[in-house]
């Protein structure tokens, strides 16, 4: 289901693909656990320590959103991690149906909001967070500085 790969023959980049065909998040527990594990291993190998738990939770939240909402055309989600200038740069993307990002801005204001808590969590966990979405899919970009 998942094929973790270290690309470009370098330890400074991690690329993961995860099949997410079919409905229901529960069938993806093992692959999501593996993503957390792979991202954690990569971050640790790049000298991250205190930040690792924040990074892995943020990635899990991004992947969970894809599984629950995106319906990717190619049936996959993509996770890419790079390290540059002491920062880990993470992209989590899909080519699913996308959504109106503006909707989030209204609902995440309240702690008791039903939706958008995952987004709020990612924003809080990471130093930089951005999300773009449209007809060609959704990409979450996040950065975290190494302490």
């Amino acid at each position, binding site marked *: 289901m998942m094929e973790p790969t270290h690309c470009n023959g370098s330890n400074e980049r991690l690329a993961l693909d995860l099949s997410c065909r079919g409905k229901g*998040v*529960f069938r993806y*527990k093992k692959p999501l656990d593996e993503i957390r594990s792979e991202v954690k291993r990569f971050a640790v190998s790049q000298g991250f320590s205190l930040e690792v*738990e924040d990074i892995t*939770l943020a990635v*899990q*939240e991004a992947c*969970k959103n894809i599984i629950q909402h995106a319906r990717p055309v190619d049936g996959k989600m993509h996770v890419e991690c790079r390290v540059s200038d002491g920062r880990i740069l993470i992209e989590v993307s899909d080519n699913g149906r996308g959504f109106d990002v503006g909707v989030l801005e209204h609902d995440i204001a309240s*702690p*008791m909001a*039903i939706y958008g*808590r*995952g987004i*709020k*969590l990612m924003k*809080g*966990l990471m130093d930089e967070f951005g999300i773009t979405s449209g007809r060609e899919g959704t990409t979450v970009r996040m950065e975290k500085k190494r302490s």
Partner: protein
Amino acid sequence: MEIEVEEKEGFNVVSPVGELDVYTVPLFRKVVLKLEGDRKHDLILDLTRLTFIDSSGLGSLIEIYQKMNAAQGEIAYVIDNPRILKILKLVELDKVFRLFSNLGRALQHVGATGGYVDEEFFSDHT
């Protein structure tokens, strides 16, 4: 995840052990909401043995809070793990929930006082 339920000093005390995430939330909801539906006691969620929580886990805590409030029941949360507390603070639930640093304090204060206690402890863990 394991969930321990016991009655202490007139409170239902529910203690999830392990990870409270999208996979374990259904079991947690089932256990707690069954207690809420047959409510004779106020509720304390002892989260001191949680090792991980995600947005789904946070959502379950909010749902339980809302249901207890609707039933005019008291609910409090026991947290001593700075990591779990940090997650709650990121989504500002520390401003909504009654938080205690240990079960003894929760048992002592729930139903007796309003607002928050242990302010010094919680202000030290951001």
